């Protein structure tokens, strides 16, 4: 459940940026024959609504209706008393507090005479909400909006770049707190990293640790006491005002591994800052591996934000103007190493 800093700040997220996003999406909606669009949101699937309005729910769920014209309508089962708080993070939507958000938006689209309405991630829409919408808008065709939204959403603007940059600074600052020589307990490390991120104003921080890289590269969300081995890795997934990044770093007690890890960190930073758009990420990583002698690529994944999830597996070559999180697993002359870093894909 969200319990970090939440709020809207005009300098970080200007109203003009939100207006521009909505305008872009409306053009795409019109081009694809959608009279309106619907977006479900909860704290696990907040990102589309956050991108359009700045609002992220800390609890419960809701539905955003984006008509072709006029203000968006946010319908939620959160009580009327919470409307004031919603207003502090969403300054542009009409807020409707109702026990049946689906009925509220269904009536709106029916009354507006909509014929075809796009629903982001239509198949996954909660059945209860779907029944409410369908019952209130019997003659409206509902269809998936996924690719239309993703194509519009993929290119990030300056405001989002700034928020991602702030989230990344929080993640890096939090991981900088780890002193590999002194770190002996994974629970303490997790607490330290999370505390630092939250003290800096993180909206959310999920810390995961692989406590013994030599035996298992998988990460758990540690709480309590768990001894750290000589080589371990820590992943900080950090959100700031709805923008998410992941950073993973590997740590070692022995000097030789530490040097190898520092080289790998520097390599990842170089790679993340120079990814070519339109070309296979796997091929680019393989080609860049020659900069790191004796390294072998074990695995690589990319995540991006193109739907309701903050970060989800990215498919296909990275596109110009987009953002992704790159996670890499290497063997450094036999030493296991994990790293992850955000990357802005600039046009070349």
């Amino acid at each position, binding site marked *: *459940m*969200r*319990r*970090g*800093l*939440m*709020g809207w700040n005009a300098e970080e997220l200007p109203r003009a940026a939100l207006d521009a996003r909505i305008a872009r999406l409306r053009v795409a909606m019109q081009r694809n024959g959608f009279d309106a669009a619907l977006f479900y949101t*909860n*704290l*696990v*699937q907040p990102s589309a609504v956050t991108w359009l309005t700045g609002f992220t729910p*800390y*609890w*419960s*769920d809701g539905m955003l209706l984006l008509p072709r014209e006029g203000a968006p309508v946010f319908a939620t089962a959160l*009580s*009327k*008393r*919470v409307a*004031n*708080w919603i207003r502090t993070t969403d300054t542009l939507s009409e807020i409707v507090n109702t026990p049946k958000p689906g009925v509220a938006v269904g009536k709106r689209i029916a009354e507006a005479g909509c014929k075809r309405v796009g629903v982001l991630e*239509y*198949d*996954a*829409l*909660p*059945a*209860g*909400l*779907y029944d409410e919408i369908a019952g209130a808008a019997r003659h409206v065709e509902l269809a998936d909006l996924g690719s239309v939204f993703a194509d519009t959403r993929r290119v990030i603007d300056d405001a989002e770049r700034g928020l991602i940059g702030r989230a990344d600074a929080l993640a890096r600052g939090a991981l900088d707190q780890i002193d590999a020589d002194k770190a002996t307990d994974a*629970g*303490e490390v*997790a*607490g*330290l990293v*999370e*505390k630092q991120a*939250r*003290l800096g*104003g993180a909206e959310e921080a*999920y810390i*995961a640790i692989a406590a*013994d890289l030599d035996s*298992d590269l*998988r*990460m*758990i*969300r*540690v*709480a*309590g*006491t*768990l001894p750290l081995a000589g080589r371990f890795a820590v992943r900080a*997934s950090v959100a700031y005002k709805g923008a998410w990044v992941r950073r993973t770093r590997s740590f070692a007690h022995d000097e030789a591994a530490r040097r190898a890890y520092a080289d790998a960190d520097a390599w990842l930073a170089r790679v993340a800052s120079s990814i070519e758009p339109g070309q296979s990420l796997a091929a680019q990583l393989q080609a860049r591996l020659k900069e790191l002698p004796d390294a072998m690529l074990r695995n690589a*994944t990319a995540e991006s934000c193109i739907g309701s*999830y*903050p*970060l*989800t*597996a990215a498919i296909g070559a990275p596109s110009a103007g987009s953002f992704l999180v790159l996670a890499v697993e290497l063997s450094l002359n036999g030493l296991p190493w994990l790293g992850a870093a955000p990357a802005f894909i600039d046009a070349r």
Partner: protein
Amino acid sequence: MGGPMGRPKWGGPSEETHVTVFTDRRARLLQEMAGEGIDVLLLYGNAWQNDYLRYATDFGILEGQALAVVREDGITLYLDHALEADRATLECSGIEVVHAPDLLGEVDKALSRLSNRRIGTAPARLIPRRLAARAKDLNLGDRTAFLDRLLMGKLASEVDAIRRACKVADEGYAVFRDAARPGRADYELIAEAEAFFRSKGVDDNFQIIGVGGPEVRGMAPPSGKRLKAGDMVTTELTPCVDGYYAQICRTLVVGEPNAEQRQAFALYREAMEAGIAAVRDGVTAADIARAENDIFRREGLGIYVTDEYTRVRGHGVGLFADTKPHILEDVTTRIDEGMTLIVHPNTYHPVVGYLVLGDVVAVTKTGCEVFTETARELFSMPA
């Protein structure tokens, strides 16, 4: 890397007892399913609403969504997020974990193989539309009420887990209170509590906060407000231990409380104690709410116990931070021995602002046992 039953040794407060609770719960679920004539359960979960899924799988999901298929001969947990699937293979014991990027497609296929079986779903309102649309073909039926009954009526080992969680909540509130100093931002207080919780085996926490005076109408996530002398700081702190959430609601004042704040607090304390006194096997949720609200009505403050100013007068605690039954005057759910509740008359006070106080109790035949040990006082922190 495996602890008992393959679970990693994460060294939380209760590794062995944790396994016992889960084993007890799973055995009960299968037994009750057989008794109800349910062949298979399809359970949905995400980081917001995870209690139904966690009951059967013991997995505390953070990112993405999950569906679990529960059969007599085994449980399969489908997760659409790769990192979460990785984590589940380490953290969950005795269940099959499947990373399913196409979550709905995979589960649809799995359910299709279970033809002619009676499949119950819970919570039905959150089951993805595509699967719900095949209810007739797949023989799906809404069994949310069945799961709700199990979630509300706790086993002895679950009650013990909540007792442990309450102890951590008490300790967490002390950390939160000590962090409250003039000039600090509201989110910094929560950061201190979170660091403490991670060291205590707490993997989640629900917490909202209010800072200020009569202008404060409720609690919300922190907004960056900085504490100053005279502010009331309200919080509802809800750590999750071994999957079970326990809550504590307390109010503190930065500096010495004034006469109005003391007087208002005395009323809330009286209301909470009236509510707790009403708790016993056989009463209804409405009886408890009425006992709390009558104290406010007696003082001419009845308007402040309506939904204009407050949400609930308490609720269940367990695998969800805000589980059933909700303590309201129009909720007629019977309160049974073995239920665990928080009684909290939290609401707006017209003179001093939003004020909170709440304790967790376990229902017994003749009354209740109070688990919260933090003093029922209006705390004062140096200004």
